[in-house]
């Protein structure tokens, strides 16, 4: 009798552990996206603080902070400034985050990993390369973007 109950308990624990492991994978993916989103917000705050005298009040394509020119945000690449290029990539990255989050809600660990998460990673990599090339001295900004990239869990 006791051995049957023991067997039942072992099966119960193993099956629960398997279900929990699936949920754990989803949890890791979602918590990773959350950390990544926070890091990217930090990167946006740093870039805007370099661009605007009052980042809470100001916005737009033209930087008002004198530091912007010194660090390289006003440099023209492909007919626009580095500030605009960074903002475009940030917009795409936040858009990709929304899509990745929506996909992760429906995702089951037995399904193929959502492609939107990979799309998001590609944009972050593009952003990191741009910042490293045109704002090489802005290490804190680079670190924030790198953290946003590293936080993403790919199975």
């Amino acid at each position, binding site marked *: 009798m006791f051995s049957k109950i*023991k067997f039942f308990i072992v099966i119960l624990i193993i099956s629960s*552990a398997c279900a929990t492991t699936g949920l754990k994978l989803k949890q890791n993916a979602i918590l990773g996206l959350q950390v990544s989103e926070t890091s990217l917000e930090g990167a*946006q705050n740093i870039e805007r603080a370099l661009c605007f005298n009052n980042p809470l009040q100001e916005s737009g394509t033209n930087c008002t902070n004198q530091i912007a020119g010194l660090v390289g945000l006003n440099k023209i690449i492909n007919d626009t400034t580095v500030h*605009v290029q960074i903002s475009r990539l940030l917009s795409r990255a936040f858009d990709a985050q*929304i899509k990745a989050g*929506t996909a992760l809600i429906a995702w089951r660990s037995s399904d193929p990993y959502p492609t939107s998460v990979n799309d998001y990673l590609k944009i972050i990599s593009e952003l990191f390369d741009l910042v490293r090339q045109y704002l090489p001295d802005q290490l804190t900004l680079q670190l924030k973007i790198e953290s946003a990239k590293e936080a993403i869990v790919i199975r």
Partner: protein
Amino acid sequence: MITIPQLLILMQALPALINAGIMVKDQISSVIKMFFPTMTEDELNAIVGIIIINAESRKIIADRDSGVNN
């Protein structure tokens, strides 16, 4: 976090505890959760909801800075 020796002792005691009506399924589930800490689907969906709200507001700012929706 429960240790492996503690889990083994618990496994030994489980049949007696269940027979005595002391331990029920929910409590077994709690023990499993201690060993494999996870959030529920609802908790995870709530986190994604927050991520999406934050990302949407940040996207609006980025669009303004890139000349979209000025």
